[in-house]
């Protein structure tokens, strides 16, 4: 029963893993404060039939979107909430930047299906004539973030969002219920890169020297020293500080799930330039003899390393889409 005066909150999925849901649930008791003010009118993945229910609603106050936009059905829901909702929240790395599934952004549907249907164990295939009711939602030519599709009011980065994003979201929801809509676009986290908060911070952030480049499996990582100073590529310099550094505390380098640091348009370009400027700067002779490129060869998968969570919003993807459109 809808209680008078309560606001309408809808939670809508793109292509998801469920981690964002668990992160919301893990907020625990504080969630009750939100439920006092909001009626959750919709939650759950939706295809054809489900749109009817949302369509029948004249207005939604707040809509939270989780997941990447990969299929026509994901896209339909994204557009639907922009039409209906006063405040749209992009929740999680997938919605804000494309996330891990965004690594498929440069792949055409045919290519994805070709690979998926040719794994070593796929031995039997069947295609039948399907009535409309049984047809699957089509895969889009590329994979995008919600931000590329519409203009969300609030962005909660993270894979999944941690307590900084969650506390921020709770505050937005409570404020909104009190009649205070956020001014302009909101993105949770600090207005600086992770390095500024990192406990492994070297004495002088401007004097980091990388002794070469090593892959994760190649060395025993010191538990207190800056990753870059050990030759391990850490995404900290190009990543927004919006977590409590759980990975770094667990002796694993940052992989950028909070997205680009403020002022960084393209994480990969920013990071490459950062590395080029700190790599072996104390060994100019070696650099001159072997060349920087030789060392950079150790970056075997720049796309997966620099754009693990942000590929759909990279220049690379934008250029590729432009080129395809031109034919």
């Amino acid at each position, binding site marked *: 029963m809808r209680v008078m005066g309560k606001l309408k909150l809808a939670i809508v999925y793109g292509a998801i893993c469920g981690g964002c849901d668990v992160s919301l649930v893990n907020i625990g008791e504080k969630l009750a404060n939100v439920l006092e003010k909001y009626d959750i009118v919709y939650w759950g993945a939706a295809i054809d039939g489900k749109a009817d229910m949302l369509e029948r609603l004249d207005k939604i106050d707040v809509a939270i979107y989780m997941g990447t936009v990969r299929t026509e059905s994901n896209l339909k829901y994204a557009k639907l909430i922009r039409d209906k909702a006063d405040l749209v929240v992009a929740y999680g790395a997938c919605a804000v930047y494309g996330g891990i599934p965004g690594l498929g952004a440069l792949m055409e549907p045919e290519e994805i299906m070709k690979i998926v249907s040719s794994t070593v164990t796929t031995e*039997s295939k069947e295609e039948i004539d399907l009535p409309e009711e049984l047809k699957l939602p089509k895969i889009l030519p590329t994979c995008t973030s919600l931000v590329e599709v519409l203009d969300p009011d609030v962005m909660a980065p993270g894979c999944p969002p941690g307590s900084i994003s969650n506390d921020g979201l709770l505050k937005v929801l409570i404020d909104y219920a009190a009649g205070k809509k956020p001014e302009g676009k909101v993105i949770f986290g600090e207005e600086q890169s992770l390095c500024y908060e990192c406990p492994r911070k070297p004495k002088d952030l401007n004097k980091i020297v990388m002794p070469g480049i090593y892959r994760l499996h190649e060395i025993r990582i010191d538990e207190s020293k800056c990753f870059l100073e050990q030759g391990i590529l850490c995404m900290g310099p190009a990543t927004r500080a919006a977590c409590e550094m759980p990975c770094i505390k667990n002796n694993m380098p940052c992989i950028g799930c909070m997205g680009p640091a403020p002022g960084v348009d393209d994480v990969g370009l920013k990071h490459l330039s950062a590395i080029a400027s700190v790599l072996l700067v104390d060994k100019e002779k070696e650099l001159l003899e072997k060349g920087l490129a030789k060392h950079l060869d150790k970056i075997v998968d720049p796309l997966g390393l620099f754009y693990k969570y942000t590929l759909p919003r990279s220049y690379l993807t934008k250029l590729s889409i432009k080129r395809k459109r031109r034919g």
Partner: protein
Amino acid sequence: MAYQFVSIDPVTRVEGEVRAVIVIDDKGEVKDAYYQTLEIRGFEAFCKGRAVEELPRITSAVCGVCSWAHHVASGKTLDVLFGREPPPTAKKLREIAYFMQIIDSHLLHFIVMALPDFALPNAPPELRNIAGLLREDPKVATLFLKSRSIIKDIEEVFGGKPIHTAFVLPGGISRRFTKEDIEKIDKLTKELYNIVDYIVDYFNKKILKSEIFQKYLYDDAYMLRTYYMGIVGESDTLNFYDGELKIIDSSGREVARFDAMEYTKYIAEHMTNWAYSKFPYLKWLGWKGFNEEYLVRVGPLARLNVIDRIPSERAQEEYEHMVDVFGDKPIHNTMAYHWARIIETLHSIERMRDMIQETDLLSNDILNLEGEPRYEGVGVIEAPRGVLIHHYKANEELLATHVNIITPTTLNNAAINTELKKVAKKILSKKVINDDTLNKLEMSIRAYDPCNSCATHYMDLNGRKLFTVLIVDSNGHILNKIGYKSQEVVIGCPK
């Protein structure tokens, strides 16, 4: 012939975008049933070309509910690919962390998804959820909510992030554990033990013996006589982390036993154009469609069917009691999945409690960097929902050239479809369709615990269900609405 399509869209309390469509002929008989996964992200495609050592933190995003299962399975795959055996301390810590994943997922499913169907059978639908439980049985519901924060705290000690963690490396784990870490886990584990203890007792006394649970437990429609597959540890004991794969037939006879690396000799997959999820089958039998006698099932019940013993005291007692009740193994009653989940939760907390006392957990030897890469690896683990297989091949630069991931929900896909049809035939044929009958369909699906129980958890706090029922004629006119509030199921006619 004109057909009606009854579509439950979305099926609630399951992972991702899933729709159940029941096809009914003009005589009112159920002709077919489809459990359709509608989501595709293409992990096997975009993991190609990635640096293999990054895959544990990439593939964990296959599922946010059992992210630890993918993360650890991926790590095990890399151990093999790099030819590195993890040191004993690393292996133990991985195993303890992994028991936490089993408890996390099993409790979430039992309390939030399964329990309302049995504990509140007569409650109105808007109260058939955790909110209703809070009202009817506040102790069990409150203890469950408390368990969430304990579990999250333990997972944070192990992996930094509780979801999509940063924990395993090829040949070991990322960091040494301190005395404070172990003491913290020990203290939290003891608290969690008491909660699990209460929930096991609650299940045995209030649910297991209840008329409604007994009714579904022995209902023929909720029963499939299938093959079962699971990992068995030493002397065929229950082991989630490591062991051989064993397959038994529906009479309990062992028909296969193999090492993970050999899985392609035994498992193959069928693909259709009506679901993005595949349908694995036993290779030597071939794909025989949705035919009960050729299917294989995985998960808690399958595990308890393939093992001989549970290596922990109280769980073993419960297990013996369960087998006694049915008189024999294998147990084919799908609702016994719920029972098996409770026994496994008890086992996991018993093992955590004991293993955290072991003396070598503080060792500095947590990562093995030696070994000869073989450029191919298979890692198999018992995820909460059953056997999970990761298989990678790599080139000389250690970039992935082939990635194959078979998840437990995929392995159970054919069984879920088959049972859905069986239940639909029994409850929908020539019957009036209402919320109650549709919930009975969903109960069959829920027993398998397809991921994403979390979604329902949140919804249920607000006392809402997720779908509506509409009866639509062939012109799309709405003839009737069933249900209440925001509930929606579309019943349409073909063009």
